[in-house]
């Protein structure tokens, strides 16, 4: 039992932190991809990051070219982009501020520190100058998760935080695959060529999945990487894993409810559709399209969570 407003805040605190961490992962994967492609500075592609973010309209309104400077600014420090790292961390902190009486004090301090760190770097515009900062953002995500795991009682507060984190992760892991999809391959390079496979390795690396993937599939190719990141039952950043455990968190919350909650039904529909999907047909009809549909369903779940617990 907890205040509805507080449940809402802890859910979003967790979602925004996961979001910030994933933007840092996006930038990281793009950097690795381009290094592996051997592109020169002039040939460097930044547009895929915008295309996959889902915020390309917002970007085009205020930026004329998708070069390093503007993309870094847009994704990292742009206050007008609601999904930039800065915006996400700012909102995570505002939410944490309203729930600080129920989260471990170290969690609040870490988020607070991350916010100040972001402010301190906010004038930088190149990935190279920001490399340590992006690493720090990713590490903070791990620290946050670790502190929650080790210091938070497994009550409703925990379940809401966990659910927020996992729903966000499911969405972002899918989009990370999309970055590679949008990247234009230089002439002469083919899908499933050795170069192509090296790049899929980079995608796995950016979600710390390379070792776990190899144990299951041993060699790298487009189909298997897609299957692993979408459908692995065991890997903690895959869509399937994220959703299964988000559903578990939700059912823990609903177990204590006097009536059946509608969010459980929506969540059930989403997990079911994921369990029924298969890699071949997704590749055939397009990964990008699959992700868009998936995200629309995710929004329905989010909406019904809002109506079930936060709105009253």
């Amino acid at each position, binding site marked *: 039992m*907890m205040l509805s407003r507080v449940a809402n805040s802890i859910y979003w605190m967790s979602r925004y932190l996961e979001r910030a961490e994933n933007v840092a992962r996006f930038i990281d994967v793009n950097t690795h991809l381009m290094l592996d492609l051997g592109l020169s500075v002039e040939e460097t592609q930044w547009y895929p990051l915008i295309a996959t973010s889902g915020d390309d309209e917002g970007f085009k309104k205020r930026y004329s070219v998708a070069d390093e400077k503007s993309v870094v600014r847009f994704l990292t420090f742009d206050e007008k982009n609601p999904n930039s790292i800065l915006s996400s961390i700012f909102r995570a902190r505002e939410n944490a501020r309203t729930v600080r009486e*129920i989260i471990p004090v170290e969690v609040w301090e870490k988020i607070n520190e991350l916010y100040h760190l972001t402010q301190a770097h906010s004038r930088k515009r190149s990935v190279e100058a920001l490399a340590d900062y992006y690493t720090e953002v990713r590490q903070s995500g791990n620290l946050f998760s670790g502190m929650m795991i080790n210091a938070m009682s497994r009550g409703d507060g925990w379940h809401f935080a966990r659910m927020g984190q996992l729903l966000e992760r499911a969405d972002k892991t899918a989009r990370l695959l999309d970055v590679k999809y949008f990247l234009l391959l230089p002439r002469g390079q083919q899908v499933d060529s050795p170069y192509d496979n090296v790049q899929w390795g980079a995608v796995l690396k950016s979600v710390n999945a390379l070792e776990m993937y190899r144990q299951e599939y041993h060699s790298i190719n487009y189909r298997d990487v897609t299957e692993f990141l979408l459908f692995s039952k065991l890997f903690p950043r895959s869509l399937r894993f994220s959703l299964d455990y988000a559903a578990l968190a939700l059912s823990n919350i609903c177990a204590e409810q006097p009536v059946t909650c509608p969010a459980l039904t929506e969540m059930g529909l989403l997990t079911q559709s994921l369990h029924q999907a298969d890699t071949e047909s997704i590749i055939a009809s397009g990964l990008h399209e699959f992700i868009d549909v998936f995200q629309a369903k995710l929004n329905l779940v989010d909406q019904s969570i809002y109506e079930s617990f936060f709105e009253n």
Partner: protein
Amino acid sequence: MSLESYKTDGFFDELFESDGVPHAAAAALIEQLDALSRADLKRRQKTAEDILYQSGNTFNVYGDKKGTEKILPFDIIPRLVSSTDWERLEKGIAQRIHALNLFIQDIYNDQKIIKDKVVPADMIFSSACYLKPCEGLKPPKGVWTHISGTDFVRAGDGEFYVLEDNLRCPSGISYVLENRAVLKRILPKAFQTLKVRPVSHYGDHLYKTLKHIAPDGKDDPVIVVLTPGIYNSAYFEHAYLAQQMGVPLCQNSDLIVEDNIVYMRTTRGLKQVDVIYRRIDDEFIDPTVFRKDSLLGVPGIMNAYRKGNVALANAPGTGIADDKAIYTYVPKIIKYYLGEEAIAQNVPTYICEDDKERDYVLANLDKLVVKAVNLSGGYGMLIGPKSTKAEQKEFAEKIKAAPRDYIAQPTLSLSRAPTLIGNGIEGRHVDFRPYSLYGEEIFTLPGGLTRVALKKGSLVVNSSQGGGSKDTWVLGEGEDFGGGV
């Protein structure tokens, strides 16, 4: 860093007897400070500031678009209070709070003290803090001011004088607790040498105080802290106290009153609330009773309170007893209800509403401190010896226009305490606010907030006017000494 050359400049000093010679109780602390190099002291000061910044007890710098945040300035050199001084302060505070609660109960009920002509009727009824809707209220167990903080200054004679009774849920206790937590990390050795009384049990005492006033039959009451929200300057403290007690921190939108019962909205539906530690001012707490334009309050909460379905701490209406003009009557109030002489002394105060006293004030504006009776935070104040002719003229006009709104006091030579300034240690003026809880009995936390005017020569300690804070160490072994600080 040697303190041999420390100068008291003729002021009463909290750590030094005279130039370079510490009070007996402070000798061990001074010896330890002496042993630290200048660089080491500065490094520790910096570390303390970093810890406080990281904890997030910060405020936004006004007008700064970049969202720069600052902490309340903190000085690592603690202020000490000897056990003899503390014993006397504790008794004086308990006596005052006891009498003031009887006074408030009387004022809103039988008004005997007015009928007996000890306090003039128009002093009460002309006060903006007298709340008509509180007439006839009888709070649970007769306690109105569950949480209070008494402001003291120490004058040139070394005596503590009460400056203000803050009976409307004063803020600042989170600084007391945080400052202590920081200093335990910064000067651990000093704690081992001096017997410093603990403050960390404040949260437990606060919880017990609130539980004590729960409606009858509620053995496991639902207690909440009510805050105006995250944009309130004391929000950190509200969250901090909720956390210390492990209770929900509510905003008004979380609460709803139905059939005179207060509920909070939870993920599992409505849940009844029994006790509210509210950090919203009286005028804003219920728009159906007080200010109709209040967006912070909970409509209907006063009726629920009157019916005894929910307890509020503090009770509404307590402002009548900390009005700066009523303050002058406190010694008489103590005598009237308790038949005792006041232990804690008042600063001599002139009431501008009194013709004779007003004439004196107007003739001596350059020597006196003039205060608006219903403002705090160092606003609406004239410090005579530091004011210009124009400012004095402005205040003369204000006093003549609304004499009830002003009081005046002689300019006290406030005590000073050694403070880290730039590369050295210099004396700066301080005041002192211990915090009390009135539950089953009156408990004053052995410690408190020492505010320090960081500007050289300044007498204004308010944070809005360049003040900072210090940790306050009450020495000796109290009954509550449970090991650990």
